[in-house]
């Protein structure tokens, strides 16, 4: 009778460890490639356009652009250093009601946000997020003025500036998408009535906006070189403008200098995205994307996003 083969535990352990390391590695790479957008020019362009199309949020769309390529600085830190610093005044005393959580404080916050919202919409209409430099500068300058007017103090910090800007961006998004009814904890009191958004008026209650890549052109080496030279000029202008603003402020200067990245661009593609509402195409926009390292970024210095703001 043939002797039963003995189960070799050690061999099993080695094989299982190696095979599973390969399988788990493969699953990780698959998950990364499917979810992470920056490795795909199409995904980056779609995400950039979709952020603007769905909620009119040009502010957060910049996270997919060259403004976010500086490896040492998050987009938020770039705004903090490049645009907020001149207005920060944390040594100034704050109005007495600040931090009390009182109804008065809430009312003042609401007043500031409402006044700033009108200003935000105005900026969106007349300046647009493509000129982020003017947008940020004008917005924060106005915020200081409005806070002083409503609070009666000169205090300002970056948290307050972000809160106001993000609240306004969110409110603008709700003006497009509509907002759901909000009920208080008692289950009865209506804190906020349901509102209909502009998109619902334009495209119907169950509207669906989709962004897809319709065409893609990879620039030849020569054309890419020309593109990169032009990009370098645009970025140099932005840095020079920033340097003047910085007036010797090291952090501010460094934030603007970080925009210079043309030398690291190793590929350029021109993508055409279409925005469809149901079956009909609402807009077509060209979005240039550039590759730095392995990641793709929208070249915000050469993009006209007007077509993506469908409600304007």
């Amino acid at each position: 009778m043939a002797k039963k083969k003995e189960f070799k535990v050690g061999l099993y352990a080695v094989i299982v460890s190696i095979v599973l390391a390969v399988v788990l590695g493969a699953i990780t790479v698959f998950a990364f490639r499917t979810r992470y957008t920056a490795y795909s020019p199409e995904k980056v362009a779609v995400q950039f356009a979709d952020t603007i199309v769905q909620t009119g949020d040009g502010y957060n769309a910049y996270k997919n652009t060259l403004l976010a390529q500086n490896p040492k600085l998050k987009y938020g830190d770039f705004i903090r250093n490049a645009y907020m610093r001149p207005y920060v005044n944390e040594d100034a005393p704050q109005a007495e009601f600040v931090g009390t959580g009182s109804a008065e404080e809430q009312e003042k916050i609401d007043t500031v946000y409402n006044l700033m919202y009108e200003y935000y919409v105005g900026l969106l209409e007349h300046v647009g997020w493509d000129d982020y430099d003017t947008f940020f500068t004008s917005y924060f300058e106005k915020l200081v003025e409005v806070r002083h007017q409503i609070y009666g103090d000169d205090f300002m910090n970056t948290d307050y500036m972000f809160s106001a800007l993000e609240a306004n961006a969110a409110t603008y998004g709700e003006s497009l998408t509509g907002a759901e009814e909000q009920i208080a904890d008692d289950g009865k009191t209506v804190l906020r009535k349901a509102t209909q958004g502009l998109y619902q008026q334009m495209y119907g209650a169950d509207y669906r906006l989709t962004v897809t890549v319709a065409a893609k052109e990879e620039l030849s080496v020569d054309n890419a070189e020309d593109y990169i030279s032009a990009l370098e000029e645009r970025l140099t202008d932005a840095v020079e403008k920033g340097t003047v603003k910085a007036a010797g402020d090291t952090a501010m200067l460094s934030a603007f200098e970080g925009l210079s990245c043309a030398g690291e661009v190793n590929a350029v593609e021109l993508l055409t995205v279409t925005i469809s509402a149901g079956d009909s195409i609402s807009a077509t926009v060209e979005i240039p994307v550039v590759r730095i390292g392995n990641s793709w970024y929208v070249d915000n210095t050469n993009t006209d996003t007007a077509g993506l703001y469908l409600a304007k």
Partner: protein
Amino acid sequence: MAIHKTAGTPVPGVTPRKKYMKPSEVVTFGIGLFGVALLTGWMPDYTMTFFADFAFKGRGFDPSRLAVAVSTVFGVAGFVGAICELIIGILVDRTRTRLGKVKPWVGFGAVPLAIVAMLVFVAPNTNSFTVATIWMFVIYSLYTAVSCAVESPANCFGALCSPNPGERSSAISIASFLRSVGQSGGQVIIIVVPLIMKLLMGQQQYKNAEGQGLDLIISTAICAIGMVIFVMIFFANNKERVPYTTEKVSLLESMKLVFTNKNLLMVSLTKLFGFGRGVYGTVSLYIAVYLLGSKGLKLALMLPMGIGTAVGTLLVNFALKKFSTKKTYILFCVYGASALTLLFLVSKGVGFNSHLIIPFLILNFFCGIQHGNTNVTPNIMIADCIDEMEYKRGTRQEGLAYAGYGLFSKIASALTKWLAPTLVYSWSGYQFSTSQNIAYATQTDATLNRFLAIYTIIPAIFVVLQFVPILFYDMVGAKKEKITAALAERRAEDAAEAEELPADEARSEEE
């Protein structure tokens, strides 16, 4: 169901002082438990945030429906876990292989565990809420079942590693220590992975990747590979040496025993009455995000509490020398509720901002002290209840008693798993991030204050409720002394009879 006889159970024909395990085996046993805990120690809380905050971002799902779905998934998974533990216990009993009873479950179970754990973080690309909900139910229940099939047998390997009770005890102590290290080790990986990602991808690209939960996927892959390697080292090097003696225990019998013994019922009810004290664990991740700035810093938040628990264990032992188990239990519960209330009041006073970090961490240490009580005192009370039952009925039924208490404990754990996400995602008014590039949305002050309430005052209420059944517990004082003395006397008589019996037998043989 099987009750595993652990350290202290004498095995016939075994020399108690002989060492059976190679030194390397003691270490690799610990390495095995370290490996399992490396993955399973952090998975539940981080899976919850993955399902709620990352898996279906940008799909347009109604946040309130998603909140309910996540709460239900975890509640159901809690019950799946409880049932699985019972089933796995029975299956382990019936396992007969050359490798032993427990080892095959650990060695072969590690493979599906690693793969299923990984798949938990690979959400389907769907816009259908129904598909998403079904996927969450299936994948997390599957994970719960598979992790139970590996973790439970791994934890009871200590009972089988050596017939020498002393050697077994030290092996279990070392392995338990390494298991605790493993639980924190997984969280260290969750801190280290983002640091490496930031270095390789840049700050904003990391934020974008974090917004899609990719740091969790990589951390899981590392922990899963680590788990497999460590478990395989254990699998290759360790042996089962004790014949796996089991005591057949019926679930119905164990329930009957609990309900016919007032004191055991009261101890078991503490679990049910206090089921909500564990909700702090879930919200701690969000407190780490919004107070400390990163979900990876949950470890930093929980570290003072962990140290407090260790100190609490020492203090409980000290208190038990001075007071009865009942007084000690109540004392620590009152202390725990007070510490949590103080933390709540301080947090309210300071506000949810960076100034809160230091007082929060300090008070967190003091809040941890109460956990020493819940880890130690109920076990002593159960042992006392078993004495009481032996005194009344003449038989000692550890298996049934622990099984009954264990079932209450598992039901309570399932309820905690349902309550925690319900509070965090629905009651607090939590806002889900809808932007692909933003991991966690900004929350209102009201939501942040409710997070603090979930961490402090809500568990405090359950801590108070927890000691209510103990008010009716009476296996203390004169009664306990009387029973202990009577049992000691009875055992002495039994021992004397056992000594006389062989002498009588020898005499009759001579005659």
